């Protein structure tokens, strides 16, 4: 599934917090249908990078060029704000580590899933509800929970609800920040299984940030290893994990516990 142009072209992306470095001189291409994992320890700049990529944070230098559906490649920070916000609501999805940040906790599960549809002009209740039901089914939430409040959901269900809420608008690019970070191991496994299936079925491009190499191995086609704000190694997932070249990657891989 190679297309002529990458979906996302990142060049020299740098973000500082005063004198400190958030991320420094990051460049990569993301192709349609590709899943890119960003791994590294806490504080290595993974989340800063993800926030810059997803336009939640303005970088100090560098470009993020996104291949828009109608106008071709555009630097997202040069787009007008209404266009950028529309892009974020329709073409992109952002899955937060803590579902509470990505969900509206005061309204029912169905309204959470339907919100993006209504935000782009859906005005037919029956159709909105049908889409919500369909998506709840796809993320394995029982259909009779559609009118329940998210606070009655378990952690794993909340994360799946957040995923449904993002995917309902058929985005092309999804950013995930530690999607399994707050879940226990067996729930993690099921969620990863689900994500793996959805990404493959929908041909999504995904940038997933994680400190968990097992998650990276299961989801990502390609890995970038970050340390102190810089990318120290990148390559195909199996290649990076099985034959790490950089000393830091070797350390990271060696520190996985094997039960």
């Amino acid at each position, binding site marked *: 599934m190679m297309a002529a142009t990458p979906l996302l072209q990142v060049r020299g992306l740098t973000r500082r917090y005063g004198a400190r470095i958030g991320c420094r001189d990051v460049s990569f291409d993301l192709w349609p249908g590709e899943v890119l994992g960003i791994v590294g320890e806490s504080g290595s700049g993974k989340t800063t990078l993800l926030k810059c990529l997803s336009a939640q944070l303005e970088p100090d230098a560098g470009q993020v060029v996104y291949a828009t559906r109608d106008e071709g490649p555009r630097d997202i920070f040069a787009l007008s704000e209404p266009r950028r*916000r529309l892009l974020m609501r329709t073409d992109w999805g952002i899955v937060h580590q803590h579902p509470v940040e990505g969900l509206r906790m005061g309204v029912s599960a169905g309204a959470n899933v339907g919100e993006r549809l209504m935000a*782009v002009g859906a*005005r037919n209740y029956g159709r909105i509800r049908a889409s919500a039901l369909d998506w709840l089914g796809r993320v394995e939430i029982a259909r009779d929970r559609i009118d329940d409040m998210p606070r009655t959901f378990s952690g794993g269900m909340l994360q799946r609800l957040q995923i449904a809420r993002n995917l309902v608008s058929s985005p092309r690019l999804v950013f995930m920040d530690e999607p399994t970070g707050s879940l226990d191991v067996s729930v993690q496994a099921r969620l990863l299984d689900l994500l793996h299936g959805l990404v493959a079925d929908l041909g999504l491009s995904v940038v997933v940030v994680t400190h968990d190499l097992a998650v990276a191995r299961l989801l990502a086609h390609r890995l970038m290893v970050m340390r102190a704000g810089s990318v120290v190694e990148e390559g195909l997932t199996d290649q990076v994990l099985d034959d790490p070249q950089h000393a830091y990657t070797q350390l990271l891989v060696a520190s996985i516990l094997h039960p």
Partner: protein
Amino acid sequence: MDGYNFAYLDEQTKRMIRRAILKAVAIPGYQVPFASREMPLPYGWGTGGIQVTAAIIGLADTLKVIDQGADDTTNAVSIRRFFARTTGVATTERTADATIIQTRHRIPERSLRADQIIVFQVPIPEPLRWLEPRETETRKMHALSEYGAMHVKLYEDVARHGRIATAYDYPVMVGGRYLMRPSPIPKFDNPKLDRSPALQLFGAGREKRIYAVPPHTEVYSLDFEDHPFEVQKWEQACALCGAGDSFLDEVIVDDRGGRIFVCSDSDHCGERRAAGHVGAQPDALGQPADKVAP
């Protein structure tokens, strides 16, 4: 009244409020910030409406003040007396005779005319507040017309009650551009906002906002294609005047569960009774039809 300027506020303040009103009229539905003053009554009792009225009232005006449709409730009586004492202008309880009508929670049943101004008291002017607590963000949403999420509230209503159950302060689009809270009027009155020949002004004292619907401006109540906007209906008619098309209040008349429905607009009901309309229980509230002043 000695020691006070005409209509209580000083001239500079009135000038500032008039500027805000002019801007509000120029941008229908847009909330204009203004330097709301302390008024001699608590926030929530109509400080915004009073300031708007004080800024527009003149010696030739006739003022009517209603609260929940009635002219004789505490809020209405005290505001009417406030302006009678600070301006000396004529006051009336008759909708047809008034040039300025200050209101809380209702629009009179009688259609307003082009030479009338209606002033609404507004507690919370921001329609997006329930879904977005940040003012910076709601302003941005207004600026970019990002109103889609407002339907989430209506969705919740339909999902929970099978219909849009919001009955008052029902969100509207003004002139196809700005989302607006019409103040806590029943949605029964929303159709009266649409293309009204009268100028409609809204004042929120605590929140320091003024907004307006100029005459003949389209006011559209939000809805779904398959759940269209509709107003309340009653099975009863007014017990006093027999009106079947007005907004009715439920009134408890004894301690045995007896209750009747009467017009909430007391002037409308009185006019109808004076014109000879009689309901099922004309004496229920101790006001025999023949004793109602014409």
